[in-house]
Structures are given as C-alpha cells and as structure tokens.
C-alpha cells in the first residue's frame, strides 16, 4: 500500500478520522517501506513492535471517539532524543549500548498526543556535522540523485536520517535538533520542510546535550502545514528545562494560509556571499517575487556582523560541547575501555568512543576555555554574539516582520566530497543558518526549487522570537508557489 506512505500528515489524520485506513495499516505500510529502504541507512533502529502496539492503541482510541491530535501518526525520532526502553546512542560509539530509563519531554508530548514511534534515525555523531558522514553507524544516503547519475549524495546533517526518512516517505514526519543548521540544511538538501523553533520553544530535557545555548528541537515534514501540526505537540513549557519558555503554545496550523499582505520582509545584503552559485541567487529572487505577489513588501536590510557568525559559532559551539561531553567517562553509562588507573581509563574510553569530528571539537573547546585563552577566544566570541543578536534586533525594531535568505550556499554534495583535508570547508555549509542559532531566533526552511542537476534547494525564513506563526504563513506562500518536490525512487 504505497499510497498510505505518500499521504501528508494532515491527509493521514483525515483518513484516520474518516476511517478510510487504520493506524495499524498506516504503521505497517511505513514499516514495509523502511524495510525496503535500508540502503539509505536512514534508521539506526527500527521499532516495529512498539509501532504496532502504539498503532493498536490509536485504533482503539479512534474507535472510542477519543482521538488525540496526532492519533495514529507514524513518526521517526532522531537518535539524539532519549526514548525510554529504546536504545539511544547519539550515533556515537561511546553510547552504543545506552538504553534510557526516561523519555525526552518532546517525544513524551508526541506520544501524549497519540503519535506512533517507527524508529530512531541516523545523525552525525552527537549532531556534529553537516553531511551525516560522522555517524558511528555510517553515512545516510540521500534519496535524491543528480539527473543521470548514480552517485551517492549526502542528505545534509546533522539530522540526515530524519530528513531522508521524511523525503523518502519512510514516516509522515520526524524530529530533529538544530544547533547551527542541523534541521534546516538537511531539509533544504532533501526537498522538505524543516523548522528550528525559537530557543526555549521546545524543552531540551532528555535530548543528548551538545551546545546547550544553541540546541533546539524541531520538526521535519513534507508540507508547511504538517510542520505546524507537529510543532504544536512538541512545543511548550517544561519545568525540567529552566531555559524552556513559559508561554502559551498557539494553534500553529491556524497560521497556515493566513494572509501575508503588508508584511515587511527583510533581505540582508550581507548574505550575498562571494562565489554564491547563480542558481541560489535566482532562487532567492524568485522567493522575493512570490512573497511580493502575495502582498508582502520586500526591503533591503543590513546584518553587518553576519561574516563573524560562523567563526563565533566555532568557538561557542566546541566550548559548550567540550563541557557537555565531559560526562562520557566510562563510569556511568556507555563504553568503557579499561586502563592502569582511573585517568587512563577515562583517556582510553574517550579516545575509543569519540569519532574524529567529536574529538576535534572537544579539543578546540578545551583549548578556548583553558587558562590564558578564555578571554581571547570564548569571552570575545560571547561579545560578538551579542553584536550578531543586536543586528537582528535592530532589523525587527525597524518594522521588519521576517527575513528571507537562501538556506544553504549550494545543493547537496557527494559522499566524501567535503571536509576531508580542511574541517572548515564543511563548516561553511552553515553560513546562512548559524546566525539564527546565535541569536536564538526561529528559522524555517521551505523547498523552493530544483537546480540544473535536479537537486532541491531551500529558502529560509527567519522570524522574531516566538513568532513561528508568521513563518508558517510565509512558508505556505512559498510552498503554494513552488510546489512540492519528491525524489524518484531508486532504492
């Protein structure tokens, strides 16, 4: 029943409500699709028994007329979210056998609302990467290929498994985490919708911590409406996360289709970077034209500290990562490699348990926080971060409602193509997305077109803090104009 897997989340919701299909049928169709798509390596753990049990419960609820907002909707969960009784590894060797005894708040809320867990998706190790090539379980292969080529492409990262699973119809939606672009960049590379909500919109409790002042959970979906539906369940205050915002959760779906007439859309001149492909430039122009046709006003804005966002990020992010990852010591959970004494045990455990990118970031972070270097690196970076945030604040206080940029500086690239010699080459992927994390703002990536090689490209909408609704309204305008994009099945 391939038809069941090509539903949007909203369509599946309607079909379930009208009893045109059952939650069990929906789950079975997806489990079958997952089995046939193992070549993509999108899932690192399939949970068919749990999926069937949850789907049966959903069918019982629907039969009793007690359906909840996501009743019977099969979803995938990035392996950064702790799931009680279900192995959670962050795709790292150091957590290869970790089975949490607790559930992350975000996933608990999805199950509270009736969703069905299909499995855990692949990601870059500890979410450190932009191509999903640093995973302990091996890379994810994008469901997309260049026209006339069989070469494997990356799905982007770090949430590459979630993005590939949504794009390849292996789930109706998925969770991701975004620290510097890890939801929006893979969404753009795979032709789907991805949202990084405002910092504090979703609880971080139970998500494997990476860079705590930047991390935020968000949804992947095939339509803007589906992403809005998912966010409503994922968002909300959590007493267990002191940084989660105690603000009401709006009905985000109601904002989909809302008029954008009279909205002022900023276009930052600093995002017109050197060497930007003409196709990206053209896509951006097209995006402006679509929003203008829908009644929005386009204004040029300036975000003067944009060029410093990436270097600032590569101080703040490793610094926080090195602190957060200090907990992996071979004592309380995960891998242990024995040594002569406790220090040697720590050192051998961490050498064996961390992959190259993780080790690199922990070392950089340790260095920039070490005595004598803290002021020159970390403190200075925190000050530049204030300036980056001020750029956005100035823009919004001048009456700009949202900002439009490309999501990425290029389409997806081939496996092994980038970052082999110089790690910075890979980091440059996040040049348009990282500013948003630095400032704690919401950012939505919407598929907007295909390049000459037939690969998807995305546009990013950046909003005021906690104004995800405006992003959904604008995102729908782009989706309506651009249409939707799906890869041709080869797997």
């Amino acid at each position, binding site marked *: 029943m391939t038809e069941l897997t090509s539903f949007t989340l909203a369509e599946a919701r309607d079909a379930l409500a009208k009893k045109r299909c059952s939650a069990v049928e929906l789950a079975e169709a997806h489990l079958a699709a997952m089995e046939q798509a193992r070549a993509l390596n999108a899932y690192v753990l399939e949970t068919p028994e749990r999926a069937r049990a949850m789907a049966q419960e959903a069918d019982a609820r629907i039969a009793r007329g007690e359906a909840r907002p996501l009743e019977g909707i099969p979803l995938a969960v990035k392996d950064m979210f702790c799931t009680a009784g279900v192995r959670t590894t962050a795709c790292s060797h150091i957590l290869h*056998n*970790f*089975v949490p*005894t*607790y559930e992350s708040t975000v996933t608990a809320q999805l199950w509270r609302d009736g969703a069905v867990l299909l499995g855990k998706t692949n990601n870059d190790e500890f979410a450190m990467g932009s191509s999903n090539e640093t995973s302990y379980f091996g890379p994810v292969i994008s469901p997309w290929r260049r026209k006339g080529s069989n070469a494997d492409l990356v799905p982007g990262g770090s949430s590459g498994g979630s993005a590939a699973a949504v794009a390849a119809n292996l789930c109706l939606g998925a969770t991701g985490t975004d620290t510097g672009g890890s939801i929006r960049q893979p969404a753009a590379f795979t032709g789907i919708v991805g949202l990084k909500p405002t*910092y*504090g919109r979703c609880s971080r409790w139970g998500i494997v911590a990476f860079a705590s002042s*930047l991390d935020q959970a968000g949804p992947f979906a095939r339509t803007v409406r589906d992403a809005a539906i998912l966010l409503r369940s994922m968002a909300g205050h959590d*007493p267990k996360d*002191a*940084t989660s*915002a*105690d603000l009401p959760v709006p009905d985000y779906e109601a904002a989909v289709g809302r008029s954008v007439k009279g909205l002022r859309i900023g276009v930052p001149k600093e995002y017109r970077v050197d060497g930007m492909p003409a196709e990206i430039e053209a896509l951006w122009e097209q995006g402006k034209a679509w929003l203008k046709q829908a009644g929005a006003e386009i204004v040029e804005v300036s975000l003067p500290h944009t*060029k*410093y966002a*990436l*270097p*600032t990020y*590569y*101080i703040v992010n490793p610094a926080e990562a*090195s602190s957060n990852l200090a907990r992996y010591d071979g*004592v*309380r*959970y*995960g891998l*242990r490699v*024995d*040594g*002569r*004494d*406790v220090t*040697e045990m*720590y*050192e*051998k455990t*961490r*050498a064996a348990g*961390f992959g190259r990118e993780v080790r*690199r970031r*922990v*070392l*950089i972070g*340790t*260095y920039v926080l*070490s005595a004598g270097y803290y002021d020159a690196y970390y*403190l*200075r*970076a*925190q*000050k*530049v*971060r*204030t*300036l980056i*945030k001020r750029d956005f604040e100035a823009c919004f206080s001048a009456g700009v409602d949202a900002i439009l940029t490309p999501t990425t500086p290029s389409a997806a690239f081939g496996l092994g193509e980038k970052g082999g010699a*110089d*790690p*910075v080459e890979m980091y440059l992927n996040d040049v348009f997305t990282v500013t948003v994390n630095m400032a*704690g703002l919401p950012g939505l990536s919407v598929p907007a077109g295909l390049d000459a090689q037939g690969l998807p490209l995305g546009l990013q909408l950046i909003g005021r*803090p906690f104004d995800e609704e405006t992003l959904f309204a604008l995102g729908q305008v782009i989706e309506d104009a651009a249409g939707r994009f799906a890869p041709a099945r080869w797997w």
Partner: protein
Amino acid sequence: MSVDAATVRRIAHLARIAVADDEIEHLQNELNAILAFVEQLAEVDVEGVEPMTSATPMRMKWRDDVVTDGDIAADIVRNAPASADNFFLVPKVVE
C-alpha cells in the same frame, strides 16, 4: 595564535582523550586550521559590549526547594559498565 605539538598533547590530556604520537601532527594541523578561521574575530570592535549569556531574555525560574524525584538507584546504575549494590565501580583511585 596557533598550537604546537606540546600544546596539542596538553589539551588532549586536559580533555582526557588519549592521542597517539602519530596522530599529533595531523591534529595540530586541523586545530590550527580552525584557529586560523576564528582569528578574524580579533578585528571586531567589542569595546563596551556585554558578553551574551542567554540566548533569549528570560528570568530563571525558581522552584520550591523540595525533593521531586528519587528512589531510582537501580535505574541510575542500569547503564553502568560496572556496578555493585547500586554503586558505580571504577579502578582503584586511592592506593
């Protein structure tokens, strides 16, 4: 600023990550590439700028100073590589 081989060894020890001798040069090059990249921050005028300590303006909530959780020792040691009687076991620390 750039790091030399001795600094790479010192950082690795601070981070408690064993690094083999034949990895030092490669790591040193990688770290220096990243440090060269972040070097451009030196040109930003940050005079009088407050360092950012919170991504969104928020007042930290206080909760009542009471026990809200506990009695889950078995859960806490469940994933431990080595434990006994709900204690974590480590190699001998004191001779």
